[in-house]
């Protein structure tokens, strides 16, 4: 163990009078795959928004590799090495699959990012990097197609590819299999297992069985609060978790 990559200290988020996330403290060890589970509206996506820098917490701190990063602009989080895929697909619809990914590659290279004069094709490696990322998620044959014209499952795969292209040290995946067919889900889970062998991954996933087999550690959120955190076995037998989550018969969902 090289110590925690990311530490959330008492973070919370209020939307007006509504508390979506309340005093959550968790730390994530390098190299681990952690699954975040919890019923609908538990605050999982909000938690991801805070950890990825999209939204600043209304309380608490976020430490990434030791530095307090809460409150920094979103693009800084990404450049530091935190990237996220979205529960609701969020792509550049009119641009090709290749360009979607290439844009993410370009953004993390300071020398390429804001170039005003040299042709984008002349920045070495970016196009190749984008293509190999597309190949990784099985979309290379679709590289020239506008993102909007891809099938749902393909868009979900592209969603992951765009996040991966930021070469994150910490990858946050928010329900990557949402709306996927069983075969696509299987492929996606295999891909996630492969991705997790090379970097730290946080995964929000409703399909409990899969998470249990895949994750090193499970974090359970409930009504904006941290309910439990531990190994899959510990979570399976946790009384609180059984009561509010498994007891509700939610394990069969999806």
């Amino acid at each position: 163990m090289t110590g925690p990559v990311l530490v959330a200290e008492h973070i919370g988020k209020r939307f007006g009078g509504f508390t979506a996330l309340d005093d959550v403290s968790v730390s994530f060890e390098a190299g681990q795959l952690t699954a975040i589970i919890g019923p609908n509206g538990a605050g999982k996506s909000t938690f991801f928004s805070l950890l990825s820098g999209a939204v600043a917490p209304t309380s608490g701190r976020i430490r990434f590799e030791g530095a307090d990063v809460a409150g920094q602009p979103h693009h800084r989080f990404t450049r530091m090495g935190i990237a996220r895929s979205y529960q609701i697909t969020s792509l550049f619809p009119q641009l090709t699959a290749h360009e979607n990914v290439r844009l993410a590659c370009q953004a993390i290279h300071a020398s390429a990012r804001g170039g005003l004069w040299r042709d984008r094709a002349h920045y070495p490696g970016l196009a190749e990097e984008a293509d190999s990322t597309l190949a990784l998620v099985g979309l290379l044959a679709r590289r020239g197609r506008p993102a909007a014209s891809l099938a749902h499952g393909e868009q979900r795969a592209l969603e992951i590819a765009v996040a991966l292209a930021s070469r994150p040290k910490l990858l946050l995946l928010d329900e990557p299999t949402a709306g996927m067919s069983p075969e696509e889900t299987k492929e996606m889970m295999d891909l996630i297992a492969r991705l997790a062998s090379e970097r730290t991954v946080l995964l929000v996933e409703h399909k409990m069985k899969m998470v249990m087999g895949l994750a090193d550690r499970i974090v359970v959120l409930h009504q904006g609060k941290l309910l439990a955190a531990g190994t899959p076995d510990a979570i399976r037998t946790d009384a609180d978790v059984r009561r509010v989550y498994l007891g509700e018969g939610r394990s069969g969902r999806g």
Partner: protein
Amino acid sequence: MTRDIAAARIMPSGADWSATAQRWRVPLLTVALAALPWIVPSQALAVNILIFGLYATGFNLLFGFAGMLSFGHAAFFGAGAYGAGIALARYGVGWFGAIAIGVAVAGVLALLIGALSIRSRGIYFSMVTLALAQLVYYVAFQATDWTGGENGLRGLTVSVIHIGPLALNFLDPVTKYYVILVFVVAALYAISRLLNAPFGAAMEAVRENESRAAAIGYDVKRIKLIAFTLSGLVCGLAGTLDALHLSIVPIDTLFYQTSGLAVMMVLLGGSGTFLGPFVGAAIFLLIEDVFSIWTPHWQLFVGIVFILAVLFLPRGVWGTLAAWHKRRSA
């Protein structure tokens, strides 16, 4: 895997054709514009297409590529025109210096208005740009000593242009056209480079999905401000050229109708395309030219054409042609 990638990258011939067209778009447009005075009914119309085509192109940079609909671009066109005009008429600056000053004034103004307006989004952004541009109009209207107020700025006739040992007669319409063309082509070349460069891609990312653009590491505010300023610079250049061409700067240059002109021309031709703004400007000005001889209500005809275009060619005339070709060759 490398071989897969290589295989997938071999493009169909249609894509080849559009890649070639893209590479040659500035030379092609240059040839077309060089031939323009001999094609359209009058020299005056040709110069207007040149100047307003550039103005619309500058506006399109912001609207078509970064997705920001400004209703205040008259401010930058006008700032260029007044900047150059005041330098010429009040301070006796040479023609080239006057152009540089006009462009610089427009750039500074764009930086200011941009910094204030990019805090808002969507329709609020549009309204802030409109309000700030009207403020500029009002100031110019009041500052009679500098701008000539509602009578416009006069006394800036440039009759001879010296380039090294060369003395060109700027009163000759043909000479004037080609001098202006040189500036327009230089600007088009720079814009084409910009659009092909990483920054052009980043602008499109902001247009397509602002929050994802930030999520993958782009500083969206910064991109917007740079896009806004560059757009203002181009429109400012168009304004300086208009001042040199007309030898006066009418106060209407700054009026919101001038802002609307850019919106109409770009929508007519096709936003987010390189050639669309010129096509739109040409159609608009051609209708004006032809119908204003017949009837004082020529704007009615422009209005009808505009409505028809928006209804039936939502991508604009050029945008539709380009999309149609892309589909056929895909």
